């Protein structure tokens, strides 16, 4: 039937395919039960994880992996906490070995206060990892120049920050995100800074291919409900983007017909 909604093709990043356009982090949850429930409700296909030293002697069943259904979720190891290319590369190599997947979320950070990326180190590490065969999803600032360079280096996806990690400010500079989107040929994920559902919908309406978030869910007072909010917001934003919204206008446009009024009756 003509009113059927066309199917939205899945998101492809390198050779990986995702039904959900919400990528979710696994950090900062009050406990792993809550995390597990939130991830399920979020509908995500892909979760980020950090690479850290094994805690020797941790009792069985208490680790992150005991709570992650790896058949269900694609693991996306990150290089969080790395402040130069070398550390990020080492971490990415370890993550690939541990995760048995080529995907990496590359982060080379500039400083501890902003956790914004260091463009110089990011470019260096991205070039290396691409050559090493990684599928690099690259965290970057909202700088259109660097986004384009990272794409040129062969990154599978560029992931500009909406705002600093965990800051909950939403998309601070929609103009930059728009420019990135208009010029990118690889998927663009808005990563970081998202605090609430409307932030996610807004990012998707700009045309982002997906949104990656963590703190917005994990530190909400009710993370599981917020996960549900984010799932719906992501779908809503995607549909809204694809639907061709009305133009904004300063003045009004009546919803009800102006003919057939009784109010001229009897005159």
């Amino acid at each position, binding site marked *: 039937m003509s009113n059927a909604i066309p199917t939205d093709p899945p998101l492809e990043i390198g050779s990986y395919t995702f039904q959900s356009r919400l990528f979710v*982090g*696994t*950090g*900062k*949850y009050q406990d*792993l039960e809550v*995390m597990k429930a939130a991830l399920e409700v979020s509908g995500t296909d892909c979760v*980020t*994880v*950090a*690479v*850290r*030293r*094994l805690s*020797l002697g941790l009792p*069985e069943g208490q*680790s*992150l*992996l005991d709570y992650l259904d*790896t058949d269900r979720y694609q*693991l996306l*190891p*990150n290089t*969080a906490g790395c402040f130069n290319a070398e550390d990020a590369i*080492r971490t990415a*190599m*370890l*993550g*690939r*070995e*541990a*995760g048995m997947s080529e995907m990496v979320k590359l982060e080379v950070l500039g400083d501890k206060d902003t956790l914004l990326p260091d463009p110089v180190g990011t470019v260096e590490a991205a070039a290396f990892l691409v050559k090493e065969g990684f599928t690099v999803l690259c965290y970057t600032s909202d700088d259109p120049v660097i986004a384009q360079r990272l794409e040129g280096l062969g990154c599978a996806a560029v992931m500009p920050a909406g705002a600093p*990690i*965990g800051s909950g400010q939403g998309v601070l500079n929609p103009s930059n995100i728009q420019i990135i989107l208009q010029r990118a040929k690889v998927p663009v994920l808005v990563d*970081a800074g998202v605090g609430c559902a409307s932030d996610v919908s807004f990012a998707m309406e700009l045309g982002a291919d997906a949104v990656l*978030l*963590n*703190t917005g869910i*994990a530190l909400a007072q009710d993370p599981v409900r917020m996960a549900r909010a984010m799932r719906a917001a992501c779908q809503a934003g995607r549909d809204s983007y694809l639907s061709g919204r009305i133009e904004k206008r300063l003045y009004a446009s009546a919803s009800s017909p102006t003919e057939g009024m009784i109010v001229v009756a009897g005159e």
Partner: protein
Amino acid sequence: MNESNQKISINGEPQTVPMGITVEGLLDHLEVDRRHVAVEQNRKLVVKADYSEVQVEAGDFVEIVTFVGGG
């Protein structure tokens, strides 16, 4: 320290392990769950296929990592 033992660093902590032990043996020795684990020896990645061949030597810096929650 028994003469058949050697000192190495694992994840930044000093540890005493048997001489001649392989990475495979080390992971057994430490009772490490191998799911989603990776190993570095002196900043060089040891791939799984090499675990049973690579020997740990005295003074080695060994890193054994896994996944934890992150964003």
